[in-house]
């Protein structure tokens, strides 16, 4: 898509341009603010924070809180730091993202290219499911996981995320495939390609942009989830957010704010990276389908 390079037809004067830059930079500062607070306080000794200057730059720079948050902070009874929980999160997020994206892609493919009676109603029901508040599903979900023998396992947790993410991935892929030429599917049918061959050989190679959107969306949501992670993970599969919460939310202990902030940034690192690295493809992916809503 050549849109990014095409000339915009709009011309603006010098004063307007200055104003535009000013507004854009002001907003950038606004967006950076919380990250600034977290960053400066994560490299200060604790007494500098409790002593007052929480917004100031550090007088004494230290990397100690980062090391502590990663490898030695007390998360439960063991001073393990966040490191082991990081891998728990990865083990849960990766399959959940992949499966929900693949299922979303298949659903989108069926709902646009293999239309059948009531398919819009089914899609409507899937879309409406995106709006279900997660708090109400906790107890029945626990029961179902128990019945399926998945309680307290990484797969159980991944299943929960797949179930509640599939509405979104289906939405993205459906809107994308809706503008994908149906003639291509027909041509492939005449060529003798079956359902999965068409999907695999024809549709999927062209789905890059929307797959990026779907993966970013799912990755961020699942990585950042706390409620399901806390409720359905087992002792050895608790994700990063639960560990971070355990680090930060001590009700009756001493609060090490600098370690907390360092831990918070560490916990957010993968999602931050995903946004920064894949951000440009994200806008492109949105362009390619989802905003056609």
């Amino acid at each position, binding site marked *: 898509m050549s849109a990014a390079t095409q000339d915009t037809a709009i011309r603006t004067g010098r004063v307007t341009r200055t104003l535009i830059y000013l507004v854009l930079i002001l907003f*950038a500062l606004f967006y950076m603010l919380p990250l600034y607070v977290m960053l400066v306080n994560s490299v200060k000794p604790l007494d500098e924070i409790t002593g007052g200057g929480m917004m100031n730059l550090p007088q004494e720079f230290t990397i100690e809180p980062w090391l502590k948050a990663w490898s030695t902070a007390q998360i439960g009874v063991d001073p393990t730091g966040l490191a082991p929980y990081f891998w728990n999160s990865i083990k849960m997020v990766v399959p959940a993202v992949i499966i929900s994206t693949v299922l979303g892609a298949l659903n989108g493919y069926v709902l646009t290219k293999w239309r059948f009676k009531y398919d819009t109603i089914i899609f409507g029901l899937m879309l409406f499911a995106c709006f279900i508040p997660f708090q*109400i599903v906790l107890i029945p979900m626990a029961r179902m996981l128990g019945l399926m023998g998945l309680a307290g396992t990484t797969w159980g947790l991944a299943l929960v995320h797949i179930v509640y993410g599939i509405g979104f991935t289906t939405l993205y892929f459906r809107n994308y495939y809706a503008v994908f030429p149906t003639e291509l599917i027909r041509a492939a049918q005449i060529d003798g390609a079956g359902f999965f061959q068409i999907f695999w050989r024809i549709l999927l190679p062209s789905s890059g942009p929307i797959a990026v959107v779907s993966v970013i969306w799912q990755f961020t949501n699942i990585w950042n989830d706390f409620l399901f992670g806390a409720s359905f993970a087992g002792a050895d599969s608790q994700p990063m957010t639960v560990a971070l919460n355990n680090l930060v939310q001590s009700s009756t202990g001493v609060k090490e704010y600098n370690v907390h902030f360092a831990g918070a940034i560490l916990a957010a690192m993968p999602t931050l990276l995903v946004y920064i690295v894949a951000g440009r493809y994200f806008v492109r992916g949105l362009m390619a389908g989802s905003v056609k809503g």
Partner: protein
Amino acid sequence: MARTADADFKTRLQNWIPKLVLSPTIAMMAVFVYGFILFSVYLSFTDSRLLPSFGWVGFENYSKLWRLSHWEVSLTNMGIFAALYILICTAIGLTLAIFLDQKIRGEGFLRPIYLYPMALSFIVTGTAWKWFLDPGIGLENIMQSWGWVNFSFDWIKNRDYAIYTIVLAAVWQTSGFVMAMFLAGLRGIDNEILKAAQMDGASNWNLYRRIIIPQLRPAFLSAFVILSHLAIKTFDLVIAMTGGGPGRATELPATFMYSYTFTRNQMGIGAASATIMLMTIAAIMIPYLYSELREKK
């Protein structure tokens, strides 16, 4: 008299595969979404407290719910929050997208800055926001130390204004995402139309107001769906920033429901509030879905 009996096995299989592929999703939706909703609605008519129990009490939970001033506060807050949040996010998102679309140098640098808040959960940023908004250590303190002695920004501590600080933080998180959606929409508009309009003598203002923004309708709709879904699910934000306080001034239906179901051991009332929330969502979403999906057919 279609002679389907003639159809060979592969063809018949091909006819079934799409439905087979869809069926796991349909089954999951049926059980994990709609089954659970029905279960929750059922619970709202029972005497459930700590765990689900099945003693039928009729509408008692609903009548108790409406006697709680606390519930009305959370509904009012939801109204204020959702309206402002959706409005401001859309306005900021659109403005930034239009500005960023003026062949801005450094777009590649600014865009991730606008987008990154979406990547962070409020477990991560909650404390930072709390500090920044705290008059004793945050913005008010800084401004006063810079010489504006009369500068005052204590909304988070003020019962009547605290909900607006929640709006502020929520806008911070998602307006960049909305910007991306609008930017994508803008980039998808045919430039020839813009050139034509300019030849017709339209000013930049008119160009946007009359030509471009009306063409962004799909982006507006997508933004509305995403934003309203986020507004309804807003939960961590409140817990992390105010814990529902000062007093109960920033309680939202989601936090209300959670606290009655899980910390107050009044699952019946929690389920009743959940039912009302779901009905509200349905009242907004069903007409929208209906018009959208029918149009596409």
